Structure formats: structure tokens, C-alpha cells
């Protein structure tokens, strides 16, 4: 698996270098036109906070080892293991030099939904912008407003530890061309407002598929295996199937799922574990209606 990925990515890099112009044009960083981020008005900070928890930013960007309110210090630095090497989430606190305090809404929004950094560079999809791409400009504006209220931190996170060729951001253009899309992941009845909301939360800010969907050799989702479970990127064990076909949660009612997201207890009174612990703590901060919407969506996706 690892070798195959490496070969394919080297291929993409090669294409990038040799194909030169055409490849560059096809895969150059593509921020939104400026108008996309204009006229959004004053942010709604209460909604921004909800978006913040739905998006789970603390899981990756919080200062390592903090508890409670210390989790709101987004100084970054925690190592994130992947088959491509170890990433260190950057400082995204409102500090003007170490963090992103000096960014504009457009710069922030383009990072979140286009994977384009402040200097126009491609960002790595270990930052789950391939899910966040579905977020509305309003939610991004509210989130940005809320994040500016968080404590500043002056820590500078270590650089990523990535072997060649993954250390080349250029190759990410090819990845985006193949995999960065905002089309729905699963067909559900969006006339039903609850399901539409659940779809938005799960496929967008909640980025549930980033862990629960298996990936192909290039690190893109297996489209036909949406939420069907995947190997654990940290090594042993598996991330469970959360479609109605799951041996485990297939038997749970929608309210069982909602109460798991709220309390961390399964209907058998097993308790949440692994990387889901962080996700569950974030989900516990959402409104009951949003947890119910997520549960309704998980009951409605194709059973795998």
C-alpha cells in the first residue's frame, strides 16, 4: 500500500515537472473570486461557536495536553500521523505573527474551502478542506468572527516531517484536481430539512468521512464506500462502519446515535474510545437538534 502510493505520487510529481505548463495551469491554487467573501456583514458569534465545535478544530489545532478552556488555545503543534509522514497542525490562534490574526476573511475562507494558503500555496488535505469545501460563506464568516475572540498564542508549530516527494506542495494540485469537489457524498432526500442539515454537518464541517471512509492509493475517498469504515491511520485497529449496514450501529435507533454523540455511551453502555473521544466531546457542544439531524442522516445513507 505505502509503496504503491509513493509510486503514484512520484508519478504525479513527475507529471508536474515534465508536463510543466499544462499541469500547472490545471492544478494551480484556485481561490474563490473576491466577491464570494464580500457583503457577508457582521458575524453571528453564537453560530460561529457552533460551527467551530462542529468543525472540530480543537482536535488538531489545540495546544497539546490542555484540558477544558485550555483547549481554546489553538497554538497547534500536535503530531498528526498519516501514511505520507507526520504533519504538525499550525498555530491558528488570532496572534498576528505566530497565528492567523493578520489574515483577511477571504484568506481564511480560501484556506478553509479551497485549500489555498495565505501565500497562494496549496495546503495539504490532512487539513480536511476537502470536507470544509461544503461550508457556506455565512458559516465561514461567523466562524472567523468567533475565532478572533479566542486567546492568542505565540508558539510556532514545528514543520511537517514529510519525505520526498510529499514535501512538494506542487503535487497537491493533482490531488485537488482529482478529489476536491463539493458535490454531495451520498444521495439523501434533501427536501427533508432535517436530512439536509444532517448532510451538511456530516459531509461538511463535521468531516466524519475523513476517518470513516476508506481511501484509494492516492488518498482520495473510495466513492462507493462512503462511511463504510476504514483502517486506523494511527496504526492498529479499525475505524468502524457507521452506515445502516454496520454490524454495530446498524442496530441502533436514531436516538441511540444522538445520545452516543451527546454522552459517549453506546446503547450497550460501552463507552466511546480512540480518536472518536475528541469528536464526541465536540459533538456534545452542538444543539440537540443538530445531533438529531446527524443521526437522521446516518440512518438515511446507503447501507454498506
Amino acid at each position, binding site marked *: 500500500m505505502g509503496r504503491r502510493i509513493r509510486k503514484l505520487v512520484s508519478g504525479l510529481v513527475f507529471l508536474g515537472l515534465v508536463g510543466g505548463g499544462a499541469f500547472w495551469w490545471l492544478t494551480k491554487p484556485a481561490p474563490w473570486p473576491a466577491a464570494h467573501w464580500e457583503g457577508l456583514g457582521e458575524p453571528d458569534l453564537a453560530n460561529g461557536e457552533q460551527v467551530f465545535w462542529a468543525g472540530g478544530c480543537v482536535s488538531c489545532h489545540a495546544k497539546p495536553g490542555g484540558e477544558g478552556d485550555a483547549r481554546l488555545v489553538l497554538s497547534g503543534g500536535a503530531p498528526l500521523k498519516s501514511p505520507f509522514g507526520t504533519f504538525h497542525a499550525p498555530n491558528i490562534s488570532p496572534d498576528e505573527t505566530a497565528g492567523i490574526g493578520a489574515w483577511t476573511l477571504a484568506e481564511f475562507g480560501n484556506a478553509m474551502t479551497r485549500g489555498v494558503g495565505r501565500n497562494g500555496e496549496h495546503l495539504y488535505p490532512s487539513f480536511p478542506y476537502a470536507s470544509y469545501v461544503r461550508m457556506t460563506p455565512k458559516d465561514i464568516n461567523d466562524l472567523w468572527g468567533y475565532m478572533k475572540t479566542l486567546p492568542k498564542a505565540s508558539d510556532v508549530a514545528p514543520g511537517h516531517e514529510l519525505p520526498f516527494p510529499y514535501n512538494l506542495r506542487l503535487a497537491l494540485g493533482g490531488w485537488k484536481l482529482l478529489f476536491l469537489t463539493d458535490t454531495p457524498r451520498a444521495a439523501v432526500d434533501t427536501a427533508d430539512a432535517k436530512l439536509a442539515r444532517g448532510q451538511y454537518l456530516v459531509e461538511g464541517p463535521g468531516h466524519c468521512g475523513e476517518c470513516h471512509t476508506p481511501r484509494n492509493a492516492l488518498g482520495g475517498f473510495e466513492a462507493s464506500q462512503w462511511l463504510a469504515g476504514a483502517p486506523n491511520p494511527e496504526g492498529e485497529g479499525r475505524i468502524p462502519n457507521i452506515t445502516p449496514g454496520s454490524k454495530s450501529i446498524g442496530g441502533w435507533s436514531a436516538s441511540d446515535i444522538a445520545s452516543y454523540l451527546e454522552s*459517549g455511551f453506546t446503547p450497550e453502555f460501552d463507552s466511546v474510545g*480512540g480518536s472518536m473521544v*475528541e469528536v464526541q466531546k465536540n459533538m456534545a457542544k452542538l444543539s440537540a437538534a443538530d445531533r438529531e439531524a446527524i443521526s437522521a442522516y446516518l440512518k438515511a445513507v446507503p447501507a454498506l
Partner: protein
Amino acid sequence: MKIRALMLAAALAGLGVTAVTAADEPQAVRQQLMKKVGAATGALAGIAKGEKPYDAEIVKASLTTISETMKTFPDHFPAGSETGMETEASPKIWENMDDFKAKAAKLGSDTAAVLAQLPADQAGVGAALGGIGKDCGSCHETYRLKKN
């Protein structure tokens, strides 16, 4: 009602027939212990959610079960029991046995502290359960791995 409460308390305390299992492999023993902790937690959650009426005896018995079980739980991870019998124990337990034991002890002492000041109503049980749930999650986060 009274009788059912007593029976439940007895079962939770490990006096029930089901507690005598044929399998005495450490993997099976510890899974059984965790199931017992799960059942006790479930009894507390039933009260916290208002699905069952508040009953001081059940609350006491459930907390006692959790607290007592956690005293011996970490003894069932001898070398050689890292795999087999569908264990969901993470290899990290054997790398950080002291921390693993500390997490078990924390749940044990936190429940003992709740016992010493028994919650007097549904809301009190809910608050206690919140703290207990965090202890379950903080151990499962690092030391329990779902494998399917």
C-alpha cells in the same frame, strides 16, 4: 419493585449466576468485568435520563460495582494476553502499564467519592455520570481499540 431492585443489586454485585463463566482466560475475564461496569453504568444512565425512577439502593449498588471492579480490572492484562479472544485491548497498555493502572484507579476513586456523597436525585445522578463517562472515555481513548 423492591425485589427487582434487590435482584439487580445482587446481579451487579457479582452474586448473580451469570458471573460464574466457564472461560477464565484473562481476555474473557476482563471483558466480563467491563460488561459488568457497562451494565452498572447503564443502570445509572436509566435514572439520569428519567427512564427509571430514582432509587438510592440501585445507585449505591451500581457505584459500588464500578468502584470495586476497577480495583482488580488491571490485574487481568498479563503478558501473553495481548491478542486472542477478540480482545480490543490496545498494545499501548503493555507499553504504559503504570498510566493504564492510574486511569483504572482514577475511575475507582472518582466513583468511591460519589459513593461517599450519594447523589440524592435524578439530577445528581446525571452530574455524577458525566464525570464517570469522562473517565471511561479517557482510558478507552488510548487503551481500547475497535477492531472491526
